């Protein structure tokens, strides 16, 4: 078996390969559904209806997609430079901490200033959470996969400590949760009488901004160059350490903003179950989008749809909600393989 690059890559393949891959993932999952004994097409019907079938379902899906766009962008930017930031979950909580410390009464500004201020604070906090790993990576070559991963656990324990101690809301009747974000900081709703808030619009803006940054600026060029071939990048005068640092701040900042959309938008206050693994799912989002910042939006909505839809499917038929994670993981793996076959062909001999 020999794998060799294709001479010309047809644009049809680029579009249809991931779609085919996702269909394959759904077919593989159908075996699991068949095993549960529930009707396959009907179950998938419930999933689709629960995700996109009504105005409410759509608003829930887009609401769920909002933090996923941010964490997906965080992973996409970092992975593009081969900086393996797996710590978006921790950075998200750092952003949420910033929102809690600054946004629950310490500073009061009119909403027009308060909301941007919170986003900036969240981004700075997210970047700060990544400062240690990137410093260790650039000075001592300590592997960032392990440091960012392990810091997730440390940060979650730290948040746990703050919520049971200094930041605990005295009005919360024993639940470990922080005080609510003040009214000026709460993200206004985007669709009347739903949970969808302007965080979604800001996420869309962020993905366009990152797309333009990666494509049209020198920074973006340097990031892509360092990811593609660090030696060549170094030879052409790009400072690798500086670029990796920039990438880390960008990536951590984006993940921190996901903490803002959840505290100031969806939930209103910080709790320990603020994120059901948005940081980790963000990696899947980025991988499904082939690290393309605009693709991140589509794959985040797709993933959010699966999660929201699986919730309502499991209420209708007897299938555990964990099917959503299985479906996502299978989609990620099969899309990875399909993208390989876009660029390469296999020759048997």
């Amino acid at each position, binding site marked *: 078996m020999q794998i060799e690059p294709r001479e010309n890559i047809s644009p049809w393949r680029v579009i249809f390969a991931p779609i085919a891959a996702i269909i394959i993932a759904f077919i593989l999952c159908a075996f699991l559904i068949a095993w549960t004994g529930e009707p396959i097409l009907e179950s998938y019907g419930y999933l689709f209806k629960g995700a996109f079938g009504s105005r409410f379902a759509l608003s829930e899906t887009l609401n769920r997609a909002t933090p996923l766009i941010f964490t997906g962008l965080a992973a996409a930017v970092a992975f593009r430079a081969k900086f393996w930031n797996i710590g978006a979950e921790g950075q998200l909580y750092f952003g949420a901490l910033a929102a809690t410390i600054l946004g629950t009464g310490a500073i009061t500004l009119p909403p027009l200033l308060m909301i941007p201020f919170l986003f900036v604070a969240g981004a700075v906090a997210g970047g700060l959470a990544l400062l240690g790993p990137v410093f260790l990576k650039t000075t001592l070559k*300590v592997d960032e*996969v*392990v440091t960012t*991963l*392990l*810091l997730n656990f440390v940060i979650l324990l730290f948040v746990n400590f703050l919520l049971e101690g200094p930041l605990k809301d005295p009005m919360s009747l024993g639940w470990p949760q922080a005080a609510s974000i003040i009214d000026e900081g709460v993200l206004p709703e985007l669709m009347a009488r739903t949970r969808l808030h302007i965080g979604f619009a800001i996420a869309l803006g962020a993905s366009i901004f990152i797309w333009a940054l990666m494509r049209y600026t020198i920074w973006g060029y340097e990031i892509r160059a360092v990811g593609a071939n660090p030696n060549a990048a170094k030879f052409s005068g790009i400072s690798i350490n500086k670029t990796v640092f920039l990438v880390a701040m960008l990536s951590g900042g984006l993940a921190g903003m996901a903490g803002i959309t959840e505290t100031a938008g969806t939930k209103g206050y910080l709790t320990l179950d603020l994120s059901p693994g948005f940081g980790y799912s963000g990696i899947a989002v980025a991988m499904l989008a082939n690290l393309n910042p605009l693709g991140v939006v589509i794959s985040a909505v797709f993933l959010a749809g699966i999660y929201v839809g699986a919730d309502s499917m499991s209420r209708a038929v*007897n299938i555990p909600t964990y099917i959503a*994670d299985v479906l996502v993981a299978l989609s990620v793996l099969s899309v990875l*393989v399909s993208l*390989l076959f876009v660029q390469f062909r296999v020759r048997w001999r």
Partner: protein
Amino acid sequence: MDWVELFISAGFWAATLRIAAPLIFGTIGELICERAGVLNLGIEGIMTMGAMAGWMWVFQGGSLWGAVLFAAMVGGMFGLLHAILTVHLGLSQHVSGIGITLLASSLSYFLFRMLLPNTTTPPKITSFQPLDIPFLSDLRFFGEAFFSHTALTYLALAIIPIAIYLLYRTPIGLATRMAGENPVALEAQGINVLMIRTGAVIVGSAMMAIGGAYITISAFDAFFFDMINGRGWICIALVIFASWKPGRALFGALLFAGLDAFQVRAQQLAGGDIPYQFFLMLPYLLSIGAMIIISKRMQYPQALLVPFRRGDRI
């Protein structure tokens, strides 16, 4: 209990061995993969799968050793998947590994819920019992500390010398190490690099799964969600700390486990003066600290992360 008493209590040393055993399986498994040139970030998911599969095997009426074999087999299958993606198709090892972790852990949770739909408290099984070794188990301090363990714990300690022997004293071990250092030279010897790497990833993943199974069928007797709780990632840190040497991996795992066992006891001694979360952070912070200490003297396999394609020139 006093601080000094803590270290001379047999319970502390027994706990250290118990915490170290799954880490040894996982670390040696990861080490074998990486020595052959393949980073396996699927470890966290494969350990979860091993924990679930091993426990489920016993729960459905299988034998304990059958469960170990079954977990190893399931782990090996995920290893094969990782090998196909990274070794044969040449995909990014980071990306594929994360994908494997996502798949293996979600599948374990799904299957667990599927097979036991309506349980709120996790059911228990009869797990591995401590082996009664004549004479040794009756010793006053040493008996309780070192000779009151299950057969699986002793197996964990036994695989270290086995791994050292296989890696450094046999042709297959030499081939494995060469696949991670200089695959082109290995290919020139007429040995199939892809097969060696595939084999190493399958064997390594099987060991990770046994490490996971240890937790549910030897250390505890039930399966919980989020049971592995980052142990797989700690194994990856331990491989780096061990500088890819099995002997040092044993040292690292024991050191780490000792600190973890200490942390639990120190929590009680501190009696609430220091919030318990800070003690729980210690193992993770120490893993990071260990990597910083070792970073200057790191000797990683030269071909780690580099996919090999037959006929490529360097």
